Every structure is written in structure tokens, then in C-alpha cells.
């Protein structure tokens, strides 16, 4: 078998590059704990209204006992419900998603709040928003002819303003 010395060098470089990329990925995953939404949790999409968590009255933004914020939302043709939410900046926020009908995808452009919402499964994403502002929340998976009309709105305000104005109205009912 004949492998040219130059080609051998190139192979080392190629494997080196792959190793470098994979190293970066493993560090961000295992050290910083950055994972895509992968909670493998099932739910009956036809009976969301009967479920505790995704019943209409329980949707929206809540403060958890540990100070983090949880957002429970339903995706359905053609919108994300509640249609408008207000969130604090620089705070860990956990989104929990369920679909009421078909496949949807949700993405807030310029952020890594992105997940598929597959009927029959709960999707969970935890992230933070460093920059206050108005963000669209867009459906990014074909879900029917109204797909491009499927959006909702997220307003991110700074932590103090949020705690003063929004935490009470939208916050923990207790």
C-alpha cells in the first residue's frame, strides 16, 4: 500500500481539525452543559386541555421556587400561546412546549431559543437572553398553508423592571 508522505501529513491535519472541533463541542456540552432540547418526555397532544401543566389557565410565565423562570407554551396552528409574553433579561429561563396538532418548530431569531415541537412529546429548552428588546417568535417548520402566519411576540426587559412590573401579574400565583 502506497500513501504519499504529503497525503499522510494532510491526513494528520484532517484528523487534527476534526479533533479540535469535537473537543470544542465536548467541552461546551460536558463542562458548560450546553445541550440541545433532548428530554424524551411524552404527552397526549389530543388531551392537553386536560393535562395539569398545559391547560389554558396554566400557560405563561412563572417564577420557580429557586428563582428561575419557567415558561409553559402551546404551539398550534397558527400561533404560540400565550401570544405575547414578557421575560426578564439575564435570567435562566426554561421553556416547556407542547403541540396541540401537528409538527411545529419555534425559534426566536438572534437567540438560541430553538426547538422542534413534535406532537406527542414535550420539548424543553433552557436559555438566557442578555439583550432586552422585542423578539419575534417564529414557526420554522412547515405546519400547513398558514405556516408563514404563525408567530408570537416576546418582550425581554431588564431584570429589575421585570421584577417590579411583570413578576406579580404574570408570576407565581402563590
Amino acid at each position, binding site marked *: 500500500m502506497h500513501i504519499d508522505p504529503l497525503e499522510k501529513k494532510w491526513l494528520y491535519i*484532517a484528523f487534527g481539525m476534526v479533533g479540535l472541533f469535537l473537543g470544542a*463541542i465536548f467541552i461546551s456540552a460536558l463542562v458548560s452543559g450546553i445541550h*440541545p432540547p433532548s428530554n424524551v418526555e411524552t404527552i397526549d397532544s389530543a388531551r392537553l386541555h386536560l393535562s395539569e401543566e398545559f391547560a389554558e389557565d396554566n400557560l405563561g410565565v412563572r417564577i420557580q421556587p429557586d428563582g428561575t423562570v419557567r415558561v409553559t407554551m402551546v404551539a398550534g396552528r397558527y400561533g404560540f400561546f400565550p401570544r405575547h409574553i414578557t421575560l426578564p433579561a439575564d435570567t435562566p429561563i426554561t421553556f416547556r412546549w407542547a403541540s396541540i396538532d401537528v409538527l411545529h418548530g419555534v425559534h426566536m431569531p438572534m437567540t438560541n431559543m*430553538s426547538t422542534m415541537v413534535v406532537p406527542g412529546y414535550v420539548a424543553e429548552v433552557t436559555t438566557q437572553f442578555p439583550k432586552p428588546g422585542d423578539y419575534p417568535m417564529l414557526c420554522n417548520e412547515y405546519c400547513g398553508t398558514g405556516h408563514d402566519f404563525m408567530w408570537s411576540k416576546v418582550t425581554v426587559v431588564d431584570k429589575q423592571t421585570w421584577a417590579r412590573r411583570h413578576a406579580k401579574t404574570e408570576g407565581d400565583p402563590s
Partner: protein
Amino acid sequence: MIDSQTRTLTLWNLSVAFAAFVVACFLGFYQIVERSGLFEFLKSESLYFTSVSTHGVLMAFVLTTFFIMGFGYYTAVTSLKRPIWNPALAWAGFAVTLLGTVMAAIPLVSGKASVLYTFYPPIQASPWFYIGAALLVVGSWAWCVIMVVMTIRWKKDNPGHLIPLPMFATTANALLWLWTSVGVALEVVFQLIPWSLGWVDAIDPGLARTLFAWTLHPIVYFWLIPAYTALYCFVPKAAGGYLFSDEMARFAFLGLLVFSLPIGFHHLYMDPEQGSGWKLLHGVGTFLVTVPTLVTGFTVLASLEIAGRLRGGKGLFGWIGTLPWSNPMVLAAILAFLMLILGGFGGIINASYALNAMIHNTAWVPGHFHLIFAGTTIILYFAIAYHLWPRLTGKALYSRNMALVQLWTWFVGMTMLSTPWHVLGLLGQPRRISEVTYNSLLTLAWQPYELFMIMGGAVLLGSAILFGYILVKSLGNTVAATDPEPAYAQPVHPPRGLPAWVENIKLWNVVIAALMLLSFGWPIVQFFFLKTYDSIPWGY
């Protein structure tokens, strides 16, 4: 010149492929114009999604499958120097694939299957669409069997000889396609068809997506291997040189065969129905499969450098100028490389476990695969067509200059189309939308890019029409082809001392089976242990 049986078979397969391609290019141009929102009278969501579904099926399933079958028959006959084994089976495969195409096309164009080529249950299409798609795949299995049998028989008759490189690649591709198509076949046969016929009420989209992911990545290597075959086997000779390394070419094809299969979950990074460990495992495999492509880049560039220096090129870069840029095969290879470098860079971002969240399902993704598939792969399909046409018809190409213009315009058009597409993705535009008027200021930033994409699409459509025109005109050309013999590149060093396991088909099947069991075994079996809730069918 090769026998008339093979010529007819190859010409028919290629003709169906390219007819589908030209039709799909018209649809693509319509889509770009419609979605820009600049022409109010064109607006129609239902027509748009009918068009997107048809464009996807024609390009990804019809063009590719027929092209690969046709090219494979030519490769087998010319490189093994023996007639097609069981031509009746080859024609039967062609007929079944064509029947499946027509069966799927009728509901598609009549708007009864606007579910995109990725199917997307629980949105449901007409059962004819799923049955047609299944037949399309089953017909292509006949081709796989013929390729593998011809190789095995040739090996038996030529002990101690290496399988000729073009056939080595084609056999690897036939095995790859058999393994690849099992995932989508399981989804269609056990889930979609019974559900669309009403035999079962509900479907598990999580399982369906997992099975489709099995197919979704290696299928792009099924499309790409013929392009790589041209790079290794045609380009060095067309450039006036030799293949730098026959051995490394074989390892590259083996690498693609083995590592493109167990990695499909990078399409499911953002999906909730698979756990993070499995995604990470598939992510590692995704990075490993870049190695055969990096090897290909090196070997083919080195072959081009040898050719350029043999033609008198001096200095570090002088050999680039002395390459025969007016040879369609060489020009296509150079342009394909430029697009592969950029597309490969984008692919590494897509494959990145965490970074993927920023671009998943945004306009970046169609930008990426148009650059790699419609750019790199298709431009080499064009070059293969120009290479084969005189050898199949006995008539010279209608106009070599027109072919060069066609290749350049395709490259320019694809650059103009896919660059703004990537940018739009970074600006948050979702893919698969029929219009861009969201209730957000963000969309204002999108408008100039939409305009640029329309211009790129127009150039591409013109290039596609020119491609069809050249091929049709060549059929009626009165000038005979000057050199109708096959023209395969010779390696610098004849391959020697390759271990027997390189050509051991059984061994590679066992390796693939083990890797597939490892990476897809539990992720599929879990659906039978989880308490899952299936979905009823939905319209669109």
C-alpha cells in the same frame, strides 16, 4: 463504443433525470419570486407549498435516482468491460421507478401531497403519493442488485485483480443506497401507507422522524458519490494528468459508505424525542465523515496540480493557469471545489451540537444544501452529462462553448442565490415560508437579500434551460463524436498491496450493521417501551 442495450438504458435513465431537473428549476424560480412578496398577484400559499413539495421530490428523488442508475450502468459496462447482467431486470427497475414517479407526481401537482419531500406526519397526503414514493425506491433496488452482482461476478472471474476504481465507487454507492433507503422504506411501508389508507388511526411522529433521519443523511452521499467518481476517474485525465492516489480514493469511498450511515441525528438535534447522548454520538460520526471529503479535496487538487505542471505550469500557483479551463469536466471540477469549500464550512456549523440551535430550520439550511447539492453535486452531473452524451449517442456535443457558458452561469447563479440565503438565515428568516411579511421590524432587513436571490434564480433558470437545449440539440447533431471510447484516469502509481479486506463486501456489511445497531438500535426500540401518544391525521 459500448453496446446499444447499455446506451439505450443509460440514455433513458439520464433523460428522465434531466427532464425532471428542468421542470423543477422552473418551480424553483417561481418559489423564489412568490415568496419575496414583491409581486402581489402571484401570492398563493397552497400553490407555493404544492410547488415546494414537487420541486423537492423531483430534485432529491427523481433527478438523482435516475441519474445515478443511468451513470451506474455506463460505469459498470465500461469499467468491467462486460455487458449488463440481467438487462430485463434493469428495464424492470427503470419501469417501476418511473411508475412510482408518475404515481407520486399526480397527487403532488394536483395539490394532494403538499407535505414536502420529507413527508412530515401527522400532516397527511394522498396514499398514492406514499405508494409512488415507495415504488420509486423499490425500482432503484434493482439497480443496486445489478451493480453488486456484476462486481461479485467480475471478481470471481478476475482473481487477484482489484475492482476498477469507478466500479469500486459505484458498488459502494449501491450498498450505501440499499442501507440508506431502509429507514424511509420502513417509515413509508409500516407507518405512512397503512395510516393514509385508514387501516390505522394514528401515527407516532417521533418514530417517523427517527426513521426518516436514518435516510436523510446518507442519501446526500448517495447523490454525491457519482460526483466524486467523476472527480477521481474523469477529471485527472480530462486535465491531462494522472490520479494522485488510487488507494486513497478507495479509502475515501469506504469512509463515505461506513460513516455516512450512523449519523442521521444531526437532523434531529432540536427534536425532543431523542436523548442528548445519542445526538452527541451521531455528532461525532458527522465530524468523522468529513475526513473522506477532506481526503478527496487533497487527492483531486494534487491530481490537478500534476496535470497543470505537465502542461508547463511553474511556481506555487502557476499550474492553475495552465489547466484546461475550456474543458467542461475540468471547469466543473474547479467550480464544484469552490462551492464545496464554502458549503463544507457551513456544514460544519450545522453539524455542531450546540451551534445548530442558531441556524436550525432557518433559511441558512436551504442555502447550505443548495450550495452543496445544487452547486457541487449538480455541476458535476452536468459535466458527466457532457462527457457521456457523445459516448452514448455517437454524436458530438452541439456546442462546447455553450456548455462552458452553462457551467459558469450555474456557478454564478448559485453563488448569487445561496449567499443571501445564508445571510437571511442568520437574520432569523425561517425556511419553508411562502411569504416574508412577519409582524416584526426584523423583516425589513430581509428585503434586499430577497431581490438578490431572485436575480440568482433567474440566472440559474437560464442556465438550466441552456443545459436542456444543449443536450436536445446534440441528439440531432450531424457531426460524429471524435472519440467515443471511455476515458478513465490512470493513477500515478498503480495500486498495489491493498489488503483483501478493502474489497470484502460481506465484511463491510457486517461493520455497517454493527454501527447501525449501535447508533439506531435503542433510539428506535425506545418507542416501543415509551408510553407514546400517536397523532391523528391532519390536513394542511
